[in-house]
């Protein structure tokens, strides 16, 4: 009885081992790089809400942004972005943004070596949304402010063009060849009249060379009446053929919390320049835009510092995170991710895709709870990257001795070549605190692809513990990992913990999930083999173990066959 009960408990363990919907072992390696330069080692800023641009014409050139204020000594009235000319190994702060840098995103045109930056500049009672065009390499030049829309924020409501999110490409064939097309998703909450449709794409069809405002013009993409507005996040995905998708949350009920929304995708097959823009995808009501999912519940709050409540995930406020990505090889394959939930513990990320240009959508291919900040990208091999940040209320991240908190943020990159099995890399496991302002980590992070490579950026607590970065991390700023201390520019005094932006890049193996599954099966078979060697195991139990091993061997053979097929496909 003793042995049976022992085996029963071991059986329970083995059964748990058999479930491997998502593998946790992987042979892929990626190095995460803390972007704070060594000469900024003294800084203790909350560098949250990061964004990333990689130059497709020269992928060693990159730009990054975050809520990073001007470093000391730099003339007031400007803000910095991060620049790297060596593929993300070293980063430098360059103060080229004229104004303060709230809600800042940036993207290179496809082949023009031109960087487009959009941000909200807070100037006393005004929140201006601006667009800058610059050639950042070899040194920043040709800085041109293309648009500066001044919005007052003094009374009544704050008339701001919110959360500008840039996407850009260069036309490579056909009409307009050589021109940069730029699409900035915005929530124009000050838009007068209409039916409360505030989701817009501020787009230019010739952004690289035209004089300001370079044709930038806002197109409002929500054709259906709202409860008064759309949610802040409006995201675009551009295919080289000229197909442009946009995703947004159409709010149908917003007079009380939780807010009720529909996730809507619109499409334009001609660079957003169709006769009726963004009307090439129609819903069942014949209005432009397909509602992928309706009745999404979400919370809203502005402040989670020292606060709790349904809209706070630790110190991070919840909002309307959305990401959309199109397969560079097939404009008909499009992926979306979003979040919903009536409170933080139930806040769930969903991933879905369409094979027919957004007309119909498969069900969830991935869900993660509780998590936020989804970011999607598809590389030239058709591998989908899914970057997100998962909240763990009682986590095992290492934290400073005087930090009595328990919650941690896990930053994950999952990849899949088929959309059904995912290979997971945990990039960071970091403490939730501290937070000086909202949002603590950011209302978004970013993932993008150039050819086969995925590039990403996220913000996280910078407590220097190597175990908090399972894939390895490199700090440019001075640090002592042995004593878990950040050090100043002279490597003398200790510097307080804060939030930093982190960069990574990876060429994902399209067959990685199969490799992971084979490894997991092998691990289980080895475990069972060890059990067979236990003299305390009964004959009956040994027979059951052997049968289980035979079953696993069949699964292994199947996985190996799939791996072989995958490798042939991607040769």
């Amino acid at each position, binding site marked *: 009885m003793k042995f049976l009960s022992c085996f029963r408990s071991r059986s329970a363990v083995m059964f748990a081992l058999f479930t491997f919907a998502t593998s946790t072992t992987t042979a892929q390696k990626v190095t995460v790089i803390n972007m704070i330069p060594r*000469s900024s080692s003294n800084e203790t800023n909350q560098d949250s809400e990061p964004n990333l641009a990689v130059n497709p014409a020269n992928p060693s050139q990159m730009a990054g942004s975050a809520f990073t204020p001007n470093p000391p000594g730099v003339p007031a009235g400007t803000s910095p972005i991060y620049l790297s000319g060596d593929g993300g190994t070293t980063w430098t702060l360059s103060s080229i943004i004229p104004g303060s840098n709230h809600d800042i995103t940036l993207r290179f045109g496809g082949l023009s070596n031109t960087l487009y930056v959009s941000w909200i500049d807070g100037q006393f009672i005004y929140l201006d949304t601006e667009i800058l065009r610059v050639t950042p390499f070899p040194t920043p030049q040709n800085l041109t402010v293309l648009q500066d829309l001044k919005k007052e924020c003094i009374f009544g409501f704050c008339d701001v063009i919110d959360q500008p999110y840039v996407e850009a490409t260069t036309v490579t064939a056909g009409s307009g060849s050589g021109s940069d097309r730029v699409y900035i998703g915005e929530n124009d909450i000050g838009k007068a009249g209409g039916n409360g449709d505030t989701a817009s794409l501020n787009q230019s069809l010739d952004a690289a060379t035209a004089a300001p405002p370079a044709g930038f013009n806002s197109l409002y993409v929500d054709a259906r009446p709202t409860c008064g507005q759309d949610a802040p996040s409006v995201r675009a995905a551009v295919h080289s053929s000229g197909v442009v998708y946009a995703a947004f949350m159409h709010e149908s009920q917003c007079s009380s919390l939780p807010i009720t929304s529909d996730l809507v995708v619109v499409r334009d097959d001609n660079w957003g320049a169709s006769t009726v823009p963004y009307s090439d995808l129609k819903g069942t009501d014949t209005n432009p835009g397909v509602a992928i999912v309706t009745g999404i519940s979400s919370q809203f709050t502005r402040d989670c510092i020292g606060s709790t409540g349904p809209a706070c995930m630790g110190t991070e406020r919840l909002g309307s995170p959305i990401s959309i990505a199109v397969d560079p090889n097939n404009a008909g394959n499009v992926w979306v991710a979003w979040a919903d939930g009536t409170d933080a513990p139930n806040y769930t990320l969903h991933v879905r895709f369409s094979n027919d240009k957004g007309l119909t959508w498969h069900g969830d291919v991935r869900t993660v709870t509780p998590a936020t900040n989804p970011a999607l990208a598809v590389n030239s091999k058709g591998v989908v990257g899914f970057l997100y940040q998962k909240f763990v209320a009682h986590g095992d991240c290492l934290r400073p001795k005087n930090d009595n908190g328990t919650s941690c943020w896990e930053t994950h990159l999952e990849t899949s070549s088929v959309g059904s099995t995912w290979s997971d890399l945990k990039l960071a496991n970091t403490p939730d605190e501290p937070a000086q302002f909202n949002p603590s980590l950011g209302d978004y992070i970013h993932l993008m692809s150039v050819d086969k490579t995925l590039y990403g950026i996220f913000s996280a607590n910078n407590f220097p513990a190597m175990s908090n970065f399972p894939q390895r991390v490199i700090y440019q700023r001075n640090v002592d990992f042995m004593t878990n201390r950040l050090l100043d520019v002279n490597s003398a005094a200790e510097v307080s913990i804060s939030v930093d932006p982190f960069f990574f890049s990876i060429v994902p193996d399209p067959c990685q999930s199969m490799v992971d599954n084979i490894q997991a099966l092998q691990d289980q078979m080895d475990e069972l083999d060890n059990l067979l060697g236990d003299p305390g195991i009964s004959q009956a139990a040994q027979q059951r173990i052997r049968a289980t091993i035979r079953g696993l061997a069949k699964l292994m053979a199947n996985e190996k066959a799939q791996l072989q097929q995958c490798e042939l496909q991607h040769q």
Partner: protein
Amino acid sequence: MIRDCVLAALATCMFLCNDASSIGQTSEHREARVTRNATYIFLGRIEKERASNLAIVPATDATALVKIQKVLSRPGNMPDFSNQMITLKLITPGTLKNGESMIFFTNVWLYGENLALEEVAHTSAEDKTANTASIEKTGSEAENVAIENRVRLAAAVIVGRVVTVRALQKDSNLRPMTEHDPEWQLAEIAVESTLKGTPGAKVSLLFPNSRDVAWFQSPKFRVGQEGVWILQEQKSKEVTSAIGKPVYTALDALDFRPKSEMQRIKKLVLKRD
């Protein structure tokens, strides 16, 4: 003030000494350049011409590696880069040689794996005036300049105490909403003394209670709080008609000072006057 005198003396020296650092420039130009507001002034030695120690800065004739031997003046919140090698973008390439020590007047250019500075001017290291301890580090100087600017722009500067604070009532159903809403609150301040302007015995002050990234640095106020306010008047008709009287804001982090700084602020106000 001491720093201004020293800089003026240096400018005069350069003008009279025909310093080689400004070949090709007029004397007026030399003087204007050196007295420009260079934020970082140091004694440094050229270690390597045509060099750079930032990966993003290509080495050219206009760049050199310079070792900072002694920092003479820097912004108060800037780290001390003494004894560190930095990349200097030279104002006149090719005029300085390895091993030469100079006093460099610079502005910050880039923060990378090393610091990069942009030269405004330089002068001989033998200049005794520059090497004396009489040059104050510009920590408090820089902040005084910044506060002075705020005072210059202000409609009023007062010393007082917060009497009441209330949130501005807003229709909860009023859409649209944004995470960047400032969440305005109205503070009534009893004025104890007026340093600038004619705001009256009581001041209505709008302040953003939000801790969103757009507003978190703006000062927040509570009942009973005392201090010195540097005030901007809000002339929006919408605001004044809603509140019914003139309204002020103090949105910059420098716009509220503790009461202990009253004399300091008073001096700055008088200096402007």
